[in-house]
């Protein structure tokens, strides 16, 4: 057989394997340039920006109501996190206090979103390790949550739940019951998924892979389950409670693991599913009465937001999401800055990948639960060379200070 290997033109000692922007394991456009020595990864280069959409600049041309729906579309999975964060900043600038019931409903949808996001992620993880059956099971379970969204808010993905100073959709008794029933079903299914994930074959694939120790996790400013899998006890819901998390503080705890590998991150998310289900049941039990939104039209609320600036943080399913909002006092935006959780986590990838195997690349990349269309917040344009930058240069605006 040795004679036949001569057909190869490859230098086996150092192959450059491109991962993405189109790759079956990474469904979103990101490009990793992986330097491989035999099966070992020796270096990784990352390139972002393939789907830079200019949402921040676009938002500055819209009024606050329009921008609210625009930021919802930053992400298709944590859409509610984005509006909650944005609306939270507006409410802070305008000193608008939503009613208790509105805050609870906001939290309810928020946690349902975490539930569906984590279930989706478990499915993706299973798919990455070649376990399609588990992928199907996880997605089937997730379907129940999406159906709830459709019932509560009218849309499975973009819920349009928030308005300035409240929420749009109320829950009647029948729906409360239905959510409760769904939750016990989801819990049962999640239990089964958890058991399969704790199987030895799965554990073998995931443990010891993509190591990120506590120090590195802290230094690289990782957030969310990625940080919690490395032993950092960080969660915006506890540290800086927003919506109704302050009142619900006793009904959930922060799940952490100290191993810092892909399996730890998986476990963090699996146990967060159960925490979330508990919290949803708690919310349903404690749902206060009252109105869900201010009596005035949203245009009036919008006009009540004065000139000002605020930073708002929420704990999206993938970690801390941060918005910086500066309003112009005339119902518009001066500046919007979005820092998505994946942007914080993705820098940790290099550390996790180097020294690992090629087989582990998809697993490690998936283990931080990357949401890349959220993350494509930067794009490098060489203005001097013209080219693709030319139309952008014409549209470039001076930032008002």
């Amino acid at each position, binding site marked *: 057989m040795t004679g036949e290997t001569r057909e190869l033109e490859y230098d086996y000692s150092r192959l450059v394997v491109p991962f993405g922007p189109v790759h079956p394991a990474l469904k979103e456009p990101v490009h990793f340039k992986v330097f491989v020595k035999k099966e070992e990864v020796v270096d990784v280069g990352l390139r972002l920006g393939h789907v830079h959409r200019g949402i921040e600049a676009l938002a500055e041309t819209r009024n606050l109501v329009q921008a609210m*729906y625009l930021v*919802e579309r930053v992400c298709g999975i944590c859409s509610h996190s984005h509006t909650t964060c944005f609306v939270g900043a507006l409410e802070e600038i305008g000193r608008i206090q939503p009613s208790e019931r509105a805050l609870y409903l906001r939290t309810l949808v928020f946690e349902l979103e975490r539930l569906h996001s984590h279930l989706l992620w478990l499915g993706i993880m299973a798919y990455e390790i070649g376990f399609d*059956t588990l992928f199907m099971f996880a997605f089937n379970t997730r379907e129940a949550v999406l159906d709830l969204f*459709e019932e509560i808010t009218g*849309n499975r993905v973009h819920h349009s739940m928030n308005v300035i100073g409240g929420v*749009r959709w109320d829950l009647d008794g029948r729906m409360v019951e239905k959510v409760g029933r769904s939750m016990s079903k989801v819990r049962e299914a999640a239990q*089964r998924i958890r058991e399969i994930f704790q*199987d030895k074959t799965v554990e073998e694939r995931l443990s010891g892979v993509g190591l990120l120790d506590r120090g590195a996790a802290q230094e690289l400013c990782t957030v969310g389950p990625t940080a919690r899998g490395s032993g950092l006890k960080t969660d915006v819901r506890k540290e800086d409670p927003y919506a109704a998390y302050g009142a619900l503080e006793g009904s959930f705890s922060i799940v952490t693991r100290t191993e810092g590998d892909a399996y730890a991150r998986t476990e963090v998310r699996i146990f967060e599913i159960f925490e979330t289900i508990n919290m949803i049941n708690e919310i349903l039990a404690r749902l206060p009465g009252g109105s869900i939104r201010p009596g005035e039209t949203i245009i009036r609320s919008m006009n009540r937001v004065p000139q000002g600036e605020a930073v708002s943080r929420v704990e999206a399913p993938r970690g801390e999401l941060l918005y910086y909002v500066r309003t112009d006092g005339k119902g518009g935006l001066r500046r919007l800055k979005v820092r998505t959780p994946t942007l914080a986590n993705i820098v940790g990838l290099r550390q996790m990948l180097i020294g690992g195997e090629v087989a582990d690349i998809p697993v490690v990349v998936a283990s931080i639960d990357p949401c890349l269309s959220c993350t494509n917040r930067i794009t490098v344009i060489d203005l001097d060379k013209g080219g693709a930058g030319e139309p952008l240069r014409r549209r470039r605006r001076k930032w008002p200070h």
Partner: protein
Amino acid sequence: MGRGLRAAFRALLRKPVRVRYLTEAGEMVPVPERYRGKITYDKGACIGCLLCIRTCPSGAISTTEEKKVEFSVFKCTFCGQCAEICPKKAVKLGSDFELVVYEKEGMVVR
């Protein structure tokens, strides 16, 4: 392994999961009450206040000569803001989600 095996065989013996879609021509799958589908517009009720245009995030609404509005469903993102702001409840988001037409004209709601 045992648990995966058990789950797989349980699925084998059960009916496969299916989400019903259109079954026969003209028959629609029921959607929830709050479902946000294709816009319906009651021109008679509209007073031409244009609040909907002011808040539509995607610029799907435009004015007509007779001081009313029309909706381009292809631009619409189904956020439901127009239905919410309309003081006369002239706009609603219906249950139609089959948005396929041969002529673009068919997707303008007047």
